[in-house]
């Protein structure tokens, strides 16, 4: 059942993703991509439990490395997206 359940989630989120992303204007495509970088850092959630088993084995080290790499994406992705979005101004505002 677990497989069916996860595949079901997969299908629904792909359709939802298509619906949401087609509405993003072309002006914001670069922040969209860097924001997507940040979201793909979600792998950190899977890596956390692997890095904390206390086993000192290969899986533990791989998990820790994955935590570091995914955190780069999360922190760097959200920060740079915010930096970019802060620059987008409407005419006659904020000057």
């Amino acid at each position, binding site marked *: 059942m677990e497989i069916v359940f996860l595949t079901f989630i997969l299908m629904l989120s792909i359709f939802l993703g298509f619906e949401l992303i087609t509405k993003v204007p072309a002006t914001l495509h670069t922040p969209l*991509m860097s*924001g997507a970088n940040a979201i793909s850092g979600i*792998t950190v959630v899977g890596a956390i439990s692997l890095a904390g088993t*206390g086993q000192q084995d290969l899986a533990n080290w791989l998990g820790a490395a994955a935590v570091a790499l995914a955190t780069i994406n999360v922190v760097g*992705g959200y920060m740079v997206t915010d930096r970019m979005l802060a620059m987008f101004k409407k005419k006659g505002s904020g000057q």
Partner: protein
Amino acid sequence: MEFTSGMEMVIQFSYIVAAGLFIYGLKLLGSAGSARRGNMLSASGMLLAMVVALLDQGIVEYQWILLGFVVGGIIGGTAARMVQMTSMPEMVALFNGFGGMASLLVGWAALATATETFTLVTIVLSILIGGLTFTGSLIAYGKLSEKIGSGAVMFKGQQVVNSLIVLGIVASAVMFCIEPGNAQWLYLVIGLSLLFGVMAVIPIGGADMPVVISLLNSYSGLAACAAGFAVNNNILIVAGSLVGASGIILTQIMCKAMNRSLSNVLFSGFGSVSSDTTEVEGEIKPISAEDAYYVLEAASNVAIIPGYGMAVAQAQHVVKELCELLERNGAEVNFGIHPVAGRMPGHMNVLLAEADVPYDQLLEMDDINPRMENVDVAIVIGANDVVNPAAREVESSPIYGMPVINVDHARTVFVLKRSMASGFAGIENPLFYKENTRMLFGDAKESISGLVREFSS
């Protein structure tokens, strides 16, 4: 799904909230006014997911996790602060690669506890997609930052070699699922996926990089998705597929804007040879900054069409200055942005936003083209193929059929260009020879500064 403990239930429900925040965050990205708030919401969803992941009962020690947070946080934070807006494509390419590698590592680590065949299949997938995303992104990064040659690398028998690699991947993946205890199949899958990533991106030229990084962006999400199946975690699946969908849509938009199919971009080695031999009739008419100033001074409607050359020359700030002077002179100024101008989707918009150009002045191709007849002066800055009328007029041209910004419909066109060298694929541009075109030779930043000086004096 049954919960083994109350804590487990808290964790799973928090993941649902986090997924909701990602989704709502993306929805707010639908308009420039609410986008920043959307990004904040998405970030808080991520923070929630990371905090509750730490509550997992399988965790007995925290030092390695914290070390990962600190190292990753410092690198990511520094990169986000230091990166130049012109270098955004490189940064996104690199981050795609990190995402891929993280998924590869998670898949590999999950192997220790995997028993079911289905789990093994998803582990292979996360290693495969993650691995090729990693090396593919590194090559894309190298090409974008020009650390390696940005041209397309083609050699005899390339297709055969690539087919053999794909066969090798399939065979070793199948053997791995049959014999998970035998580590050599695992190493073979890892090695071949890394190799395949390199082979897949080297034949693609620098100007096609918007497509490549969009596609790799999508793969980094799909790799996270596969890793989610491998470790049985639904938040990875939701977030990964949102990213996957985003990358695929951007890839489609880019391909459509170049009037080429995805397979043509990936396999044809476009730009490795110049195939265009069309002779263009007409005469090149240069213009001096002074004369250009007189024309601009009289103009009441100006369109500026930027391309990658503007980014290279770092000219966006002087462009904004010129734009202000023109407006003060009573002219209406708009920017026409082609979807593949620059080295990634939306690149020009970010550069102009950095220079304080308001986003309502940035028009998409389909919005500016109908207005072009009323434009007195169209200024083309460092763009070439995206304004090439051959795409409409010359059937033998390699870019025939590609949607372009019709600057030649404006009353006068100024083309700012270093020299008469043609665009990335060696395609002749009849625009330069048109009756209403004037060439302003020199570095884009210098030329515009020259115009600004004329206005100020």
